[in-house]
């Protein structure tokens, strides 16, 4: 009967229910979009690191992220190869540079120089062409999300990176850049030339180990042998990149701040409607109390109302959020909805509604059962 009473009280005033649901819906969509953007941003920031074949990253000292690192001299490679447990060291050349569009104009890109044959970092999700085609003369691989941004309409089109002509030889799908500067893959030596680097220079040395379980020990050994460089495990480099882009630039804080704002707005709206509903039904709650209901029974009715509101609001809010997620999939700023985020949002919605019920519970706790005798 507690559920029945909560359900009937909730649906008795349809307009108030609609206001409650709109409040929850608004909060859910806002939080889902903000946290989805946060998740999407996180994925974009770490995608290169996660798709590279190596347990340890060697970068110039103080490198902030995959996109922002200084140059290594190249001598480090031999020193690292001599460390026990290291099976392979793959150089990568990565830096911001300029892309000149075929029809004129230019845009900033992140050039990624890699030799796919080395097995370090090859373009993935290739939907047209082959990953190895970037080794061919003038060949580059771009992501189809950025074709318009790069002024490219189809594969085999000619463009220019800095002063060098390039041909779009492969298209990937879903390799997005948090910096909005598209990633462009090419061969290592071509990238060195385009970026004005010396033949042995690199931005990163990607270290592959015989036994990944020895990562920490090998990292410490490399650190002991090399000075003036940073030696990071994959997890450490991931954390450093996330810290830089999400919190160093404030982008992540803005996204999380938006999500918190959504939660606050939702909580206030639900609290207000639950409070007014409780106030309207105060005489009924006093009657329940007079009939011998415990305070806990009455709190359960209010919490049940909050829970029902949460479930209904969540279903509606997630339906709208999923539409937004769908339309964002092919954009440069995808919103990522993972099962974990969906479950987290449900728990958050329940918590939001439970907190909203506090004011109503406080009101009903102070109820005077003698009001049942009021005329």
């Amino acid at each position, binding site marked *: *009967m507690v559920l029945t*009473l909560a359900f*009937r009280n909730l649906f*008795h005033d349809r307009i108030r229910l609609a206001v409650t649901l709109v409040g929850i819906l608004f909060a859910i969509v806002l939080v889902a979009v903000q946290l989805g953007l946060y998740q999407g941003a996180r994925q974009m920031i770490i995608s290169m690191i996660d798709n590279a074949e190596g347990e340890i990253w060697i970068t110039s000292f103080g490198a902030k992220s995959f996109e922002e690192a200084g140059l290594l001299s190249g001598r480090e490679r031999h020193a690292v190869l001599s460390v026990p447990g290291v099976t392979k060291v793959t150089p990568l050349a990565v830096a911001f540079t300029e892309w000149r569009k075929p029809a004129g104009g230019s845009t900033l890109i992140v050039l990624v120089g890699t030799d796919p044959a080395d097995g370090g970092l090859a373009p993935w999700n290739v939907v047209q062409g082959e990953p190895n085609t970037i080794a061919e003369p003038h060949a580059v691989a771009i992501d189809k999300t950025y074709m318009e941004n790069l002024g490219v309409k189809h594969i085999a089109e000619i463009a220019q990176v800095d002063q060098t002509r390039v041909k779009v030889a492969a298209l990937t799908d879903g390799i997005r850049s948090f910096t909005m500067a598209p990633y462009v893959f090419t061969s290592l030596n071509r990238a060195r030339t385009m970026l004005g680097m010396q033949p042995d220079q690199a931005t990163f040395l990607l270290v592959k180990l015989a036994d990944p379980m020895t990562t920490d020990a090998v990292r410490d050994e490399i650190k002991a042998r090399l000075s003036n460089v940073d030696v990071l495990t994959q997890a450490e480099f991931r954390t450093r990149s996330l810290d830089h882009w999400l919190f160093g630039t404030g982008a992540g804080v803005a996204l999380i701040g938006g999500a918190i704002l959504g939660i606050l707005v939702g909580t206030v709206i639900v609290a207000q409607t639950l409070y007014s509903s409780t106030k309207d039904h105060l*005489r*009924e709650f006093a009657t329940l109390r007079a*009939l*011998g209901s415990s*305070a806990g029974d009455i709190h359960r009715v209010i919490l049940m109302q909050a829970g029902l509101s949460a479930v209904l609001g969540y279903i509606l809010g997630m339906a709208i959020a999923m539409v937004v997620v769908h339309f964002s999939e092919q954009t440069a700023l995808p919103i990522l909805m993972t099962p974990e985020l969906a479950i987290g949002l449900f728990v958050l919605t329940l918590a939001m509604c439970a907190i909203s019920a506090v004011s109503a519970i406080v009101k009903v706790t102070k109820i005077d059962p*003698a009001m049942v005798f009021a005329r």
Partner: protein
Amino acid sequence: MSSELVLEAMDIVKDLGQGAGMVRALKGVSVTLRAGELTLLMGPSGSGKTTLLSILGCILSPTSGNVRIAGIDTEGLGPEALADVRRRHMGFVFQTYNLFPTLNAEENVRLALDVRGRRGRLATDQARETLTKVGLSHKFRSYPGNMSGGEQQRVAVARALASAPSLLLADEPTAALDSENGQAVMALLAEIAKDKSRAVLAVTHDHRTLPYADRILRIEDGLIVDDERPEREPAVIVAPPPTLSLDEMRSDGEPPAGSHPNGSRMSKKRKTKAHG
């Protein structure tokens, strides 16, 4: 008097308000209620009727004095323990019915059973049985908004009865009803009071209810000033309304023809000046 003592209140004092605005609503009231009796508590407005009913119903705590319900001493009990006493031993009927407008008649009665931990099919059957007893077998699914005042009050009586309380307290049960429905509800309460395990106390200022009373308490200015037991002619004692079978009650609240208690005559068999 051999019937079971259901309620015993001793020297009840109740102060309402604080400081200079404090009013002594009850000035040392002692009351006992026995099973099998319908007692009316009458008095002018502001005399302390409702305050006394609230205290006897364990809804308000007295400033001083002691209330025992079915042998349980309620002195010093907290709100939850008092709620437990109400749940186990009491049923309430209110002037404005206090039904849940979003629940139908059956659900209103089932809610009272639910409070007492009775749920499921048995609770549904019990709710329907009680509604049938008060003449509402065809109104199980009706919502309070679609029922007459008399019908609503009978749902409230069914709700109060459903848990078989040893004490039924009614606050002005006829005040919001027309004459016919008022008579029907009083007949119902009188019938309920015939149960030798239950006492019924009704606060009222409606003199039309007098013929149904086994006992009348008069309260004035916070003191019981009169405690009388009306005596009826044998023919009147068995007059239709008080002796009606509950099943015979008509759904519109009107007792069957010839059952109106206008012919009843009362005399004071025993009159006790209550000690204040």
